[in-house]
């Protein structure tokens, strides 16, 4: 039977939490340094959200355009991030990603090729040159499989379906391990480690419409913060304006911009093509005024101006948001994206084959016959644990972070293709950073038993309560609340309301009661994820309150422009206490000053 104390204990040099691209890459690096490495993942190995990435990984290899180099890539990244980036991360990323991609090839990755046998690179939004190494539209799968196979061939211990509850400190306050439970058995397990690398990915599961899987609950963000680290830029979240909201089977799946580029239009529940009502002054000159003019543009770009459906992502998303809030949304909280009534079925199938097949296969939705119900969908968080660029070290000794859980690399907005390369560049750096840190380590560590006991007691509490709340109800309410109040377009009053409501959620989570036992119980698993979800939601809401401007992935309806003072700072969050329910301290942190030679690079491109 299940026991309430850990019966299993493991010791490692480096413990890696998360088995996506960043975690696996960190493991390889630490392994190559001769260290004993353990990887913990909430799912099975190879199922991480990295597999969802389609487009490719950005690396200035110059295979397609010889003019491309790290300086251009650096400039594109900084510009895309609205200069909120940690410049050093952007620099390292641009310089090192080509080598990381070539390295993957030595480990078995098979990228699409150019005519002369090099790795083919494709164009993507925000990148000046065709720069994304890719394999069809399954680059993420290729990345994860390559790293997974490399890790396995090196003989690394992988703890699958194991959920980490807390990071543990030693007597000096250094990170010294973690406490977790096996999902299959419900038994607790402790790990001691000289260094811990967080690579837990994103936070999207706190929103109703998201492309993230159940795993995207922000565990790493939250655990880092509970352990004393600092989160930054948590308000900067990338939403895609056209994610499917219905049918359920495809909720969150992104609808490519190509649908609008090929003639798809947005309509509200009254059938009105509403985007014409949302053309901001700065876009009037280049945007069509009538439907006729917009339709002419598709045929001949010189015969009319662009239809308003093709305004920048945030403009489109804002318009959708306003329509829904005004009660003109579709039955499931989105609007209609209609290409069926505007283009022949044959044209749609030819131009958008993967969209057509995806919706046909997953939902039986024939996009050549009916309109899609779409809405802004949470996709990626730019913010995360504040780290040192070169070593991926957080401010807590022994704790490192890489990938989506780390903040700073992408600033206020991430370019497509920069996330996969981020994983391998900083995954490796985290492995290196941890190995270097261990070399300088002296003395032996003792796990703080009090932390172990507290984490276990908290995890088990819902089994001892009666007539409490169902965790699924709390999750659903949280998602709806965050979508409504801290969604793609924010206003001061709604964000304030969210901050207040989140305190109620804290109380509700402490009143969960559960059915069934500990063995593979998804209800319990969710109950242990909810504290993380709440912690990150709180930080996002507080960041959104304090950044009184619109920048990148953060849009304030009441502050539509940028703010000079806020352009120089990150908004950081720390915990004022060591319990997850403790209050959060939010403050402005000045950006790292950019060295003159890099600044010159940025000026060049302006």
């Amino acid at each position, binding site marked *: 039977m299940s026991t309430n104390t850990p019966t299993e204990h493991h010791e490692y040099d480096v413990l890696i939490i998360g088995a996506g691209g960043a975690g696996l890459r960190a493991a390889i690096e630490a392994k190559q340094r001769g260290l004993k490495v353990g990887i913990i993942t909430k799912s099975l190995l190879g199922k991480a959200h990295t597999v969802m990435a389609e487009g490719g990984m950005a690396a200035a290899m110059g295979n397609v355009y010889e003019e491309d180099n790290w300086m251009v890539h650096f400039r594109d990244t900084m510009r895309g991030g609205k200069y909120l980036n940690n410049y050093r991360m952007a620099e390292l990323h641009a310089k090192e990603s080509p080598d990381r991609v070539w390295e993957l090839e030595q480990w078995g990755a098979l990228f699409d090729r150019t005519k002369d046998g090099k790795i083919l690179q494709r164009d993507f939004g925000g990148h000046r040159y065709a720069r994304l190494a890719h394999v069809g539209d399954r680059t993420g799968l290729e990345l994860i499989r390559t790293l997974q196979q490399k890790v396995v061939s090196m*003989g690394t*211990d992988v703890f699958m379906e194991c959920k980490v509850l807390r990071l543990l400190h030693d007597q000096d306050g250094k990170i010294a391990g973690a406490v977790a439970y096996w999902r299959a058995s419900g038994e607790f397990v402790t790990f001691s480690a000289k260094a811990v690398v967080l690579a837990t990915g994103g936070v999207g599961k706190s929103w109703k419409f998201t492309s993230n899987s159940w795993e995207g609950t922000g565990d790493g963000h939250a655990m880092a913060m509970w352990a004393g680290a600092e989160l930054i830029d948590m308000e900067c979240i990338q939403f895609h304006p056209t994610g499917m909201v219905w049918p359920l089977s495809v909720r969150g799946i992104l609808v490519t911009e190509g649908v609008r580029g090929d003639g798809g239009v947005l309509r509200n529940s009254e059938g009105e093509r509403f985007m014409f009502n949302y053309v901001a002054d700065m876009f009037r000159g280049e945007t069509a005024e009538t439907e006729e003019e917009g339709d002419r543009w598709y045929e001949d770009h010189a015969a009319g101006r662009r239809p308003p459906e093709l305004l920048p992502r945030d403009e489109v998303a804002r318009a959708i948001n306003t329509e829904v809030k005004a009660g003109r949304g579709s039955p499931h909280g989105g609007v209609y994206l209609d290409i069926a009534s505007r283009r022949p079925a044959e044209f749609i199938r030819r131009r958008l084959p993967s969209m057509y097949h995806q919706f046909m296969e997953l939902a039986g939705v024939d996009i050549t016959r009916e309109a899609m119900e779409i809405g802004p969908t949470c996709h990626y968080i730019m913010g995360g644990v504040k780290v040192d660029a070169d070593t991926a070290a957080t401010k807590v000794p022994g704790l490192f972070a890489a990938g989506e859980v780390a903040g700073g690399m992408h600033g206020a907005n991430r370019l497509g293709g920069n996330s996969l390369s981020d994983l391998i560049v900083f995954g490796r750096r985290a492995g290196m950073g941890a190995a270097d840190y261990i070399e300088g380590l002296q003395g032996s560590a003792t796990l703080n038993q009090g932390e172990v006991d507290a984490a276990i007691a908290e995890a088990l509490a819902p089994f001892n309560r009666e007539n409490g709340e169902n965790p699924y109800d709390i999750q659903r309410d949280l998602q709806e609340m965050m979508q409504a109040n801290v969604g793609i377009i924010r206003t001061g009053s709604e964000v304030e309301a969210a901050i207040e409501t989140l305190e109620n959620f804290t109380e509700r989570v402490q009143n969960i009661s559960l059915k069934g036992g500990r063995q593979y119980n998804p209800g319990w698993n969710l109950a242990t994820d909810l504290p993380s979800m709440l912690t990150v939601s709180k930080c996002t809401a507080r960041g959104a309150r304090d950044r009184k401007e619109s920048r990148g992935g953060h849009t304030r309806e009441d502050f539509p422009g940028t703010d000079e003072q806020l352009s120089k700072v990150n908004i950081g969050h720390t915990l004022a206490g060591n319990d997850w329910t403790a209050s959060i301290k939010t403050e402005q942190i000045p950006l790292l000053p950019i060295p003159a030679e890099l600044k010159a690079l940025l000026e060049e491109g302006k």
Partner: protein
Amino acid sequence: MFEERKAVTALESSTQVVLGGTRGGPDVSTLRQDRWWLQPVITVSILTSFVIYATWAAFQGVNYFVGATGVHELISPFYSPCLSTSCVEGSSPFGFAFNVGSLSPALIILIFPLGFRMTCYYYRRSYYRAFWWSPPACAVADGHTNYSGETRFPLVIQNAHRYFFYFGVVFNVLLTYDAIRSFHVVGGGWGISVGSLVLTLNATLLWLYSLSCHACRHICGGQVRSFSQHPIRHKLWKLATPLNAKHMNFAWASLFVVALTDVYVRLVSSGAIRDLVFF
């Protein structure tokens, strides 16, 4: 093709695997509700009918050749090449013959086309499923408690498929020769009859069946590691690949037509019908 490569052995695995663990779900042979048994029933019916007919036809030893008595020379594919001293005059293409007494000439040669089909990857799939129930259909329990696949005698012989393929090609050449000869009018000149068209169709389908064979695809170029370094093999492989995708269709079509050809020649030869001559 034969790049120098180093043989490697399996690595150690540290993951503990539970053998003989309890399985989930009810202990029944299948939970399928569709008509999964239909396919095996069809396969058994067709293959059994063919085997019965072919056996009967092969043991006849008569009515397999239409020679000087007809307008066009026709020979049954079951009896070509006719290599017995007992062969009907004009039916033997070579200058030699084996004395096998009263044994039907078909029995000398039938092992080759039979072997080609028996070891064919597609037929193996069909008869393992339909006749051997191993398994009868996907996610339906195997009909046997022990199973060693193709690792032991006799089934290890399936690995000889490519040799039967080579023989099959030789037979195809001979049957093509038969088909061409069937356009020749006895006594001089050329013409077309139903019989000559039947033999041509038969030879064509047999070529398609052979060239779409998996062993053929491998020999053409499937075996190379780098196509860019073997452009001709790559071209051949690209020709064989779409044919290979249709191997099943060719397998069935050629099976029907081989039997049909024998039936037709037999009917003409026995005088039951006359070969319809177009010109």
